[in-house]
């Protein structure tokens, strides 16, 4: 019989701040939620007394919808906020914005913000559980958790000793950093591969291998996690052209066909088809890109559920 566990942290600000046991707990809980979201009635009443504010100061489609769906599946009340249509445009500070929302009795905040560390600032100022849905180029913990969940499913349940390679724009990617922390906590061997201009100079200090050879890295790995070329974050020319990137660093059909073993293909989305990955590879039988999206809802339900469990109800708050 499993013993009841709790997260060791009151917020999910980044994978770096989670224990390995926390990651395991989230992934194990997500497994039960995946069963829930495949039922005829995909809803449980766990968070019926919780209100969650989704604050998105940066564009998002997948993550915002995934969180919103997870909250609704758990019966939470939700408030959605996007910076584009808010008083932030009128000069309101982040703290004022959030305090105004909290005055409406919000228990949890899911936030995406362009400034790395914005979530830490908020966590020190407000009494609500905070989930980082992406902060600049720093971390994107729930994406890493759903990636790890999908990888575990694809390779048979245990990532210890498995070889995972993250391909592409590592420099501008919050997914890469969270993935590295998460996979290392689960005992996987991690490598990054891409053009030298898109790999941070000292990333080796995190304990990852660095390679600039896509063919060799593909032959090495069990799972290939391909990252998007983030054109919106590139104010300098890091690559000569998209076509050249595809030719030298993209997961092309020819490259994948040359492999002597199957490699699990992943991508956090949105995909630049024909740039970092060819359509034939993204849609191949070895691709689990759509499973990642489904697993994202289950993993986010687990994170919300476990954080809510740490919050005492009004009835049991100390006087």
């Amino acid at each position, binding site marked *: *019989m*499993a*013993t*009841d*566990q*709790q997260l060791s942290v009151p917020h999910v600000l980044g994978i770096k701040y989670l224990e390995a046991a926390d990651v395991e707990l989230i992934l*194990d*809980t997500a497994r*039960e*939620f995946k*069963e*829930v979201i495949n*039922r*005829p*009635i995909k*809803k*449980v*009443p*766990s968070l019926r*007394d919780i209100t969650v504010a989704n604050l998105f100061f940066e564009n998002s489609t997948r993550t915002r919808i995934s969180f919103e769906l997870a909250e609704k599946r*758990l019966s939470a009340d939700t408030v959605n906020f996007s910076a584009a249509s808010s008083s932030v445009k009128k000069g309101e500070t982040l703290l004022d914005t959030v305090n105004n929302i909290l005055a409406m009795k919000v228990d949890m905040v899911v936030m995406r913000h362009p400034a790395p560390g914005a979530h830490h600032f908020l966590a020190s100022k407000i009494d609500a559980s905070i989930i980082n849905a992406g902060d600049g180029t720093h971390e994107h913990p729930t994406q890493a958790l759903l990636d790890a969940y999908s990888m575990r499913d694809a390779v048979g349940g245990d990532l210890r000793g498995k070889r995972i390679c993250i391909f592409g724009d590592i420099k501008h990617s919050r997914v890469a950093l969270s993935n590295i922390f998460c996979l290392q906590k689960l005992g996987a061997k991690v490598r990054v591969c891409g053009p030298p201009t898109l790999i941070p100079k000292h990333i080796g200090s995190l304990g990852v291998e660095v390679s600039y050879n896509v063919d060799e890295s593909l032959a090495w790995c069990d799972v290939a996690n391909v990252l998007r070329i983030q054109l919106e974050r590139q104010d300098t020319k890091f690559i000569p052209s998209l076509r050249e990137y595809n030719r030298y660093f993209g997961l092309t059909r020819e490259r994948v066909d040359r492999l002597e073993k199957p490699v699990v293909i992943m991508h956090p989305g949105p995909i630049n088809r024909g740039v970092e990955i060819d359509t034939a590879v993204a849609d191949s039988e070895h691709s689990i890109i759509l499973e990642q999206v489904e697993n994202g809802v289950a993993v986010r339900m687990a994170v919300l*559920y*476990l954080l*809510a*469990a740490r*919050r*005492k*109800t009004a*009835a*049991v708050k100390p006087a």
Partner: protein
Amino acid sequence: MPSPSIIHDSARFGLTIERLCRHLIEEHGDFANTCLIGIQTGGVQLAERLHQRLQQLGHPSLPYGKLDITFYRDDFRTAKGPLTPHETEIDFLVEDKRVILVDDVLYSGRTTVSALTALNHYGRPAQVELLVLVDRRFRRTLPIRADYRGISVDTLHDEYVEVQWQELDGADQILLKRS
């Protein structure tokens, strides 16, 4: 802490399981439209034992499932209820079926209410009956009663009933503990 007392030993435990199975056969006949669902975790142990014995008694095709109610509890944030979920495994429709809901101990009735809510997410049963191994009388906080009960015990508020199983604990027995 005082040592626990055995209120039902292994021999009587086996007899109780046998009696519950005979009672189910008496009420459900050939189990044509009946299914057995154990509530995680103690109820699953009991349901498995009942299911095995009913198969031996000539009812091999009785559908059997496991239901986890962790996400349906109304007390999961008050540190009273379990937090760690277990698997739910119901690979048949409960729509229009007679469901025998199985739990090891009936105390306040809250677990049963949560299970009824969870069960509704798998369809609308024609009937739901409750089978428990131990009925802690006079401790109910909700209008719930068992249709089939192994034993009834009268307990004080600070006492705790624990059902132990051969496969998990080394013996089939029911203990009364004082907290």
